[in-house]
């Protein structure tokens, strides 16, 4: 790496950052692989990248990994959609009607702050180990970001803009399409980003606790079997999925709501 005076080209700066990032990741895996040249390797305690790659390939070719992901995705989708359908209207009503907001705000805050995961044993006792229990857990964790972000979003709608649209003869429809939706939607999408992380926690808790299939169950089982290469492979897959979701939404936010960048 040469230490030239920084050229003031943004794309060079950007490339530099990406390159450094890739370099760091490559270094990390290389160091992980190389350290066992000096340290005795115990496959019951740790794995190494080459074995993890083999494990990943075997999991993919045997079809067990796609199957686990599919099983986990079902309650995830149900719970998440339910969270959107329930959370967004509640948040909008809380923002629209001031008194409803007053009445529900403390309750929602307490529920949001409480580690609702703690109810997992109860949910499992109530609903068994199937899709409903997991979906409910995911719903309970994912609904609050939607409620709060819709609530804040509605309250953040600029009164001035509403008055401007009205003064210039805009219809009720214009009001919604030009002011309200554009200002609330970014909040809801930002809420979705938070909710996805929490929903993934719900999937994992549900499956660690009581399940017979699914990606969380696979991780726990490979751990019990001391099959660390496969366990690391599954963990890696979960990380990749999580990054794709969160960064995907972030990208969507940047592309769809450029006026929100920097907030």
């Amino acid at each position: 790496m040469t230490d030239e005076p920084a050229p003031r080209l943004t794309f060079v700066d950007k490339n530099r950052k990406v390159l450094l990032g890739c370099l760091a990741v490559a270094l990390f895996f290389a160091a992980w692989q190389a350290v066992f040249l000096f340290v005795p390797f115990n496959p019951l305690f740790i794995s190494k990248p080459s074995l993890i790659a083999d494990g990943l390939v075997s999991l993919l070719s045997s079809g067990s990994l796609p199957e686990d992901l599919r099983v986990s995705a079902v309650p995830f989708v149900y719970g998440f959609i339910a969270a959107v359908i329930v959370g967004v209207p509640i948040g909008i009503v809380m923002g629209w009607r001031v008194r409803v907001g007053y009445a529900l705000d403390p309750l929602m805050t307490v529920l949001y702050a409480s580690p609702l995961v703690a109810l997992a044993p109860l949910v499992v006792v109530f609903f068994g180990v199937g899709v409903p229990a997991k979906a409910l857990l995911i719903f309970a964790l994912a609904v609050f970001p939607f409620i709060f972000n819709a609530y804040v979003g509605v309250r953040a709608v600029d009164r001035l803009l509403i008055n401007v649209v009205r003064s210039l003869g805009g219809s009720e429809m214009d009001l919604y399409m030009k002011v309200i939706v554009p200002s609330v939607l970014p909040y809801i999408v930002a809420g979705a980003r938070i909710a996805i992380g929490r929903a993934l926690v719900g999937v994992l808790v549900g499956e660690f606790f009581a399940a017979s299939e699914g990606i969380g169950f696979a991780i726990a089982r490979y751990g019990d079997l001391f099959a660390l290469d496969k366990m690391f492979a599954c963990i890696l897959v979960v990380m990749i999925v999580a990054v794709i979701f969160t960064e995907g939404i972030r990208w969507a936010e940047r592309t769809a709501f450029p006026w929100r960048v920097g907030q």
Partner: protein
Amino acid sequence: MTDIDVMQANVAAVAADDEFAAPTRTLWQRSEATVLGTGGVLALLVAWEVLPHIVKISEGTKLFFTTPSQVVGTLWNMFATGTIWTPLGVSASGFALGLGIAIAIALPLGVVIGRSATLNAMFDPFITAFNATPRLVFLPLVMLWFGLGLEAKVVIVVIGAMFPLLINTYEGVRNADKVLINVVRSFGANEWDIARLVVLPNSLPYIVSGLRLAIGRAVLGVVVAEFFGSEEGVGVMMVKAAGRYQVDVVFSGLIIFTVLSLLMTGLVKIGEDRLTRWRPQHASEF
């Protein structure tokens, strides 16, 4: 009476009305949020309490059902007989140790990453990946490595609480006022002085909001660590109770964790207010 006199009288009357009307209105307006908020919580609790009196609940369902009064009674019993102190102590020590270690790692690392563009670029993929991933995914691995004791719990809390703190610290450091940094540097400050005099005070609001997030994550870490791999603690108590259908104990545990979380967050808020007294009002808003 002339028109003007009438007008003045009217104005005076209106003014007097306003003077009398205004305080009562603001009192209601000020208390409205509190009253309605308390009302909302109370309404839920009352509805929950009277539900079994209105709806006939079958014997089987009764096994899974509890009322707020039962939960309060159970909580009271736990504290009165002192049975709660041992698990609470175990959970609290895991929480405190983990959060302490997370702060000790995240603060210096955040400052260093925030001050160096190269390190920032190199750490960024790892931080993004770990922050997006639910840290819970490492739980089986951590249990494999550290067993069922305090260490595993502390490790889970640390990896949960570290990232919000780390990210907020480096965001705060990066947003520190460049002019101030240059001024201090012109006066011969080294990197340590810059961190101490400019960067840390300026990033305090970021760090504090990171700390609030970290507290929530740390409590979550304690809960899940105790659910899946511990021998003692409030979480263990809850899992065992759920297995025995003692729903009131499960809710008591949930309340304990919630209160712990809210209490710590409140303490941080108080600490923040004290530490940022010097700051002009508008700047302390994050």
